């Protein structure tokens, strides 16, 4: 479970009556492996991943490009199938959890629909889930308030900056009160200043809502600043080589980024990445990056 955190207050995001006991892990990966490609030329993207993520945790997946961190996230979301092992979300197979709409997803690009206003983009999952109009309205305005975009409700996505668009995507992911939030390098395309501001906002949302977050990133400072635990991955085949517990006090803010402990943890993660890289280099194959394969061979 995560380090000490303030009690969730204000806006409720998690649905009541969730399946499973409170101490049951939200995500449980057991011996998970993923192999891409044809039988005669397989590419092992992930091998023997074992990871449990408890309720209310903020776990980052970090690793070099091609280590399969995005693939791992997509496995949790049942956007692709595991070839080995089992992926459980809220004690159910990942597919069941997806069909039960247990998680919200935020991609690197905001994936907003230009023909819908900001408000209507946030409303989209609620429309699909058959919520009535009044509760859609209420929920959309709550979520826009949560991400601080109330005054942009009637605007169109292309009128917003990249950071604001990503906030809309977060509001949309949270709109239907999922118990899990999956974020795939959500701030990778933003400039450094915006990224730091977005990090603080995500933390504040996490603290207020009590949602469980799995966060893919390739930024070490971002992973350390946000997470309760950082899962360090290595490439070829992708595996979790180390888990770094982040014991920085919460709430975290500017002073966190300037504390010695923060820098020590950054060094720790960096060394864990290097160690994994050395181990991986030994078995380095000449095969193409599996992560690229995943992106290009995705659903069409």
């Amino acid at each position: 479970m995560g380090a000490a955190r303030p009690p969730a207050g204000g806006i409720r995001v998690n649905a009541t009556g969730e399946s499973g006991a409170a101490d049951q892990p939200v995500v449980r990966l057991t011996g998970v492996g993923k192999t891409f490609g044809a039988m005669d030329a397989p590419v092992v993207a992930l091998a023997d991943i074992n990871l449990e993520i408890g309720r209310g945790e903020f776990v980052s997946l970090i690793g070099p490009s091609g280590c399969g961190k995005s693939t791992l996230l997509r496995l949790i979301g049942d956007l692709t199938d595991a070839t080995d092992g089992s992926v459980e979300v809220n004690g159910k197979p990942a597919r069941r959890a997806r069909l039960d709409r247990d998680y919200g997803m935020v991609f690197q690009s905001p994936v907003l629909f230009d023909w819908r206003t900001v408000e209507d983009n946030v409303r989209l999952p609620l429309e699909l889930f058959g919520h009535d109009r009044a509760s859609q309205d209420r929920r959309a305005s709550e979520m826009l308030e949560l991400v601080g975009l109330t005054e942009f409700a009637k605007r169109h996505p292309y009128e917003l900056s990249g950071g604001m668009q990503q906030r809309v995507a977060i509001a949309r992911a949270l709109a239907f009160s999922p118990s899990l939030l999956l974020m795939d390098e959500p701030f990778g395309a933003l400039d450094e200043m915006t990224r730091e501001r977005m990090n603080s906002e995500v933390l504040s949302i996490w603290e207020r809502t009590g949602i469980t977050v799995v966060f893919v990133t390739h930024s070490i400072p971002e992973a350390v600043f946000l997470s309760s635990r950082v899962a360090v991955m290595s490439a070829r085949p992708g595996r979790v080589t180390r888990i770094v517990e982040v014991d920085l006090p919460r709430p975290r803010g500017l002073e966190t980024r300037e504390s010695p402990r923060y820098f020590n943890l950054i060094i720790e993660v960096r060394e864990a990445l290097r160690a994994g890289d050395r181990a991986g280099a030994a078995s380095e194959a000449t095969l193409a990056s599996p992560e690229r394969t995943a992106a290009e061979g995705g659903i069409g």
Partner: protein
Amino acid sequence: MTVQTARPRRTILRRIVSFLVFIVAVLVVWEAFKLLAGDPIFVDGEKIWDPPLTVWLATDVNLPHTWVIWNRTLAPVTSGAKESLGGYLIGQAVFTMRESLTGFAIGGVLGIALATLFVHFRLIERAFVPYVVASQTIPIIALAPLIMFFTGHNVSSVIIIATYLCFFPVTIAMLRGLRSPDPRALELMRSYAASRRAVLWKVRFPASLPYLFTALKITATASIVGAIVGEGPGGMQEGLGRALMFFSQQYAISPEKLWASIFVTAGLGILFYLAVVGAEQWVLRGRPQAAFG
């Protein structure tokens, strides 16, 4: 960062003005050519202008004066008839428009339906798209008599020809439009466990609309061509196609009749095209202005 969305009223006004300027320019060039190289101009039997050059194309038979054409539209269609040529042509235009509108609508619906089918069933797409493409390599002129032979010389065969010209651009553009959403958008819908129907209505159809309108702008005019081709060689007793056929036979005697028919036909095409543009502006309001054909 902000993108201009609302098309200001001034822009529409500017478009109308530039269109009128274009019309005036055409008339000026037309008459200037006549003054330079046409037949001598007589007023009350007296020659008031003798052009310095003589070009066969600019003679009164080949290129009548614009005012002569205009005056002819106000005169009776045939000597002794009650109806003026203009009134007659407008009546025929309405008849042709009904046919082409029907073909446009059926072709559009057929194109959308085919594209929707193809996008959901790869196998059907692989099996049928080559034939859809091949169907367009047969010239309509060659096909028209055949269709007439099968369905008879009536409105339905004209509508079939107009439909035939319309469904193809819509099918191809819609197929592209329905495939245009970002793969991430489809993954997002998958994460919501959205049904295929929901993906179609919430993502694919809205994303395809700019593509659809590009195709409809083409088929708006193609449907008129189809209707006229159907009416002319099809031996219809009504419609602009019939008027164009008939008046081209009388060209040596009164070229103004054919010219007036051509202008009315062109006007119908422009009207139809503008109606589609208007619908596009309304349907796609609030979207970024990028790259809409």
